[in-house]
């Protein structure tokens, strides 16, 4: 910078030095060739220190990179940069927020190119912008959180919350890739269908928390035994699937044997040592691209055979074999169709008042008219329906059908007009939030007095989730229906819950009735069950009464109601009507005064 001799012009050198901003001149790569007093004063640096050093070196590293990659090329190409936000490090090592503007004169002739730089202090503006950027980052972060939550949701949808393993949906999603081995690969996919033996017993005796703990332990044991690229999933309840690439059936069954051994080791559940075992069905995927459903179905069939052959073992499914009696999935499909196509029947078993000998009600019992196997009793399909969830639609159908019949009889026949209808509720139905609405709706539609409906719930169903059961029962009670505890004596037999649940009737399990008079233990149990019922003010009912001796003993013990073959088998509606008619007639005959 040279002074001017023209007296008409102001003193540019003084103007340069006393300008209200920092002024510098640098060469093309930032080496400082001139700096004004304002800049020196603001930074605390001395002129000799700055001349020859690079302007970038006064900036923090981040700004240096930005200056080199962005500002210098921009100056080189466009000749100017404007209001770049930087920091200048002063002699005191403090950073000073600044705005940098610069323009460049290209080299011409002897003159090298130079860059004229203006630096403004920009503390306030910097603070303000920093706040804005922080707000922006917060907004971005909340967006990122939303995205993360979505991802977690996706994960949840594909995984079992209890064990962290894949669930059925997750298994199917993962397996798209798994089932199609690369061409030339001689390996095959093996499915191992693992079902714990007697898992229900653990659940029933120790409660669901213990059952869950057991499932988690099993998952933990299964994972390390499988290879990294294999898949472990929990399908439902105590059913696990392991999918593994194997060279052949031998490798698959060896793995099954290994898994059996690992699962047999005792586990500590809620402080108790539990020894569990499993049954494993093994199936090897067919070479011609079998679907995952089919592969699992075959492994399931083999698993059922392992169960049937005594549990705690593995069985290999041979593709040619087909055994309809163990083909549970096929049976399930048939049952589903059966419900929809009207293959279910309701039979009615009379319930007799032991004090009067009158028929006061009937229990509705479902039958399945199977296309090939004939009329099946509930024991053949209720368990399957319960496990699969089909029980909800099945149970609803039975209730609706029974109430439909009740309405019809009410209109047609005075003999059955006052009957009470007992219908079974399963554990799953009890936990179904739609249950109460379904019951109310069915009663309203058939115009049946709620007090004529008795819902029977097994002891074990009540205890699987006592709190939920209490809530459902209380709401059902509010609707006006009566409630019975079914199969009493096989589970908890606790006075506490008898008092807690709003039940009207206690049904003593048929196994005790069978032993009546022949087994003193059973006789004592039946006696105390009746006393227990009366002690809490409810009716005692005996089911499975087959002989007149049993009926007499029960009467003498004070039992209120009884049902069983001794009185009548479960009968289709028309036969029941006839039976009722006949028994009424008979009673009238008996009581008719003699000629």
């Amino acid at each position, binding site marked *: 910078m040279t002074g001017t001799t023209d007296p008409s012009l102001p003193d540019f050198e003084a103007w340069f030095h006393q300008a209200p901003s920092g002024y510098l001149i640098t060469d093309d790569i930032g080496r400082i060739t001139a700096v004004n007093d304002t800049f020196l004063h603001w930074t605390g640096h001395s002129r000799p220190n700055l001349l020859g050093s690079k302007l970038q070196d006064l900036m923090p590293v981040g700004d240096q990179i930005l200056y*080199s990659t*962005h500002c210098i090329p921009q100056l080189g190409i466009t000749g*100017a940069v*404007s*209001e770049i936000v930087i920091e200048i490090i002063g002699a005191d090592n403090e950073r000073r927020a600044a705005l940098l503007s610069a*323009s460049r004169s290209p080299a011409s002739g002897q003159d090298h190119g130079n860059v004229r730089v203006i630096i403004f202090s920009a503390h306030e503006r*910097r603070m303000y912008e920093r706040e804005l950027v922080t707000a922006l980052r917060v907004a971005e972060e909340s967006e990122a959180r939303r995205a993360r939550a979505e991802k977690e949701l996706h994960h949840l949808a594909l995984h079992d919350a209890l064990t962290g393993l894949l669930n059925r949906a997750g298994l199917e999603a993962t397996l798209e890739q798994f089932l199609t081995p690369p061409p030339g690969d001689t390996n095959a996919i093996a499915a191992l269908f693992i079902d714990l033996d007697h898992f229900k017993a653990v659940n029933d005796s120790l409660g669901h928390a213990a059952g869950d703990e057991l499932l988690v332990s099993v998952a933990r044991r299964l994972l390390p035994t499988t290879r990294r690229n294999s898949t472990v999933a929990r399908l439902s309840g105590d059913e696990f699937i392991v999918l593994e690439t194997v060279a052949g059936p031998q490798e698959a069954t060896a793995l099954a044997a290994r898994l059996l051994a690992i699962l047999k080791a005792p586990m500590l559940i809620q402080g108790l040592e539990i020894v569990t075992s499993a049954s494993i069905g093994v199936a090897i995927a067919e070479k011609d691209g079998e679907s995952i459903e089919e592969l699992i179905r075959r492994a399931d069939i083999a698993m059922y055979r392992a169960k049937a052959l005594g549990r705690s073992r593995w069985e290999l499914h041979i593709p040619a074999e087909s055994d309809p009696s163990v083909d549970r999935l096929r049976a399930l499909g048939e049952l589903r169709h059966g419900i929809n196509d009207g293959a279910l029947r309701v039979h009615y078993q009379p319930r007799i008042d032991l004090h009067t000998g009158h028929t006061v009600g009937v229990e509705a019992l479902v039958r399945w008219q199977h296309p090939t196997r004939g009329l099946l009793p509930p024991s053949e399909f209720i368990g399957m329906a319960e496990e699969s969830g089909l029980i909800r639609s099945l149970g609803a159908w039975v209730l609706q059908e029974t109430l439909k019949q009740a309405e019809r009889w009410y209109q047609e026949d005075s003999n059955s007009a006052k009957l009470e209808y007992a219908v079974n509720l399963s554990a799953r139905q009890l936990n179904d939030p739609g249950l109460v609405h379904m019951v109310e709706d069915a009663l309203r539609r058939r115009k049946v007095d709620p007090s004529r409906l008795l819902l029977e719930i097994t002891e074990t169903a009540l205890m699987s989730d006592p709190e939920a059961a209490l809530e459902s029962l209380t709401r059902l009670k509010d609707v006006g229906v009566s409630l019975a505890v079914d199969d009493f004596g096989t589970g908890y037999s606790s006075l506490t819950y008898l008092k807690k649940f709003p039940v009207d009737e206690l049904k003593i399990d048929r196994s005790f009735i069978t032993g009546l008079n022949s087994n003193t233990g059973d006789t004592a149990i039946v006696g105390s069950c009746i006393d227990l019922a009366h002690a809490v003010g409810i009716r005692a009912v005996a089911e499975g009464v087959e002989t007149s001796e049993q009926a007499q003993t029960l009467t003498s013990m004070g039992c209120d109601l009884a049902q069983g073959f001794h009185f009548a088998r479960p009968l289709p509606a028309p036969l029941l009507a006839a039976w009722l008619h006949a028994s009424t007639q008979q009673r009238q005959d008996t009581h008719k005064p003699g000629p």
Partner: protein
Amino acid sequence: MVETAISGASPVIRRNNVTVTGQANGPVMMFAHGFGCDQDMWRRLLPYFAEDYRLVLFDHVGAGHSDMSAYDRQKYGSLDGYAADLLEVCECLELEDVILVAHSVSAMIAVIASNQAPGRFSHMVLVAPSPRYTDDPTDGYVGGFSREDIEGLLASLDSNYFAWAAALAPMVMGNPDEPELADDLRSSFCRTDPAIAKHFAGVTFLSDARPELPKVRTRTLILQCSDDRLAPLEVGIYLHKNLERSTLMHLQATGHCPHVSSPKETAEAIGQYLSYFA
């Protein structure tokens, strides 16, 4: 210089704002710009090659006039995403025997691209390259920066957030010394979405492309500047050692952008190399 707009442009051409200039029938020279800039940064270098070469330029997605909506944080979360784009441009224009000139962080994008499609490129010219900007204490590698330094860069980018956001860009005052520059270039040059710039900076300056180096089979010229804060001398030597068929040339030009500050020297170095090897 005449820039040829590509008629009936494919999505790839639009995405990367590809422009083709120079000698239509000449061998292909393709230019990949580095961080903080766009294809306009090659403007001073191009005249040296425009008569003999077909010049292909593009903007990385997120920079210049590329399609900002194509920016996908996952795809561009590593250099691979950029390399894939570069190869797509080559494929789309059916470029063969490409001389790929890549600056700064793009040098490693070029290396990855040439490893994925070795037949596509005849030569690479890496201008001020570095395979890793941060030092690696585990093996003594010197990149010139610490991780904290790079975090400082990200903070600087935040500081310039509003300056970079196009809507609030301050008008650049004219420079009476260079009146020939079009105003639109002045205001658009090196504009970028600040959020993308920050992500790009994080990805490129924290990446480590050293494992890619031994795989390179393409002949490579390494142009090393004097006094380059971003690529110290050790880095040039490291690259030369690890790139099998490489030539290392030191330029008098100082700083990080010799094609901007000393285009003549840069062009002569490239020309000299090509006349020898090509």
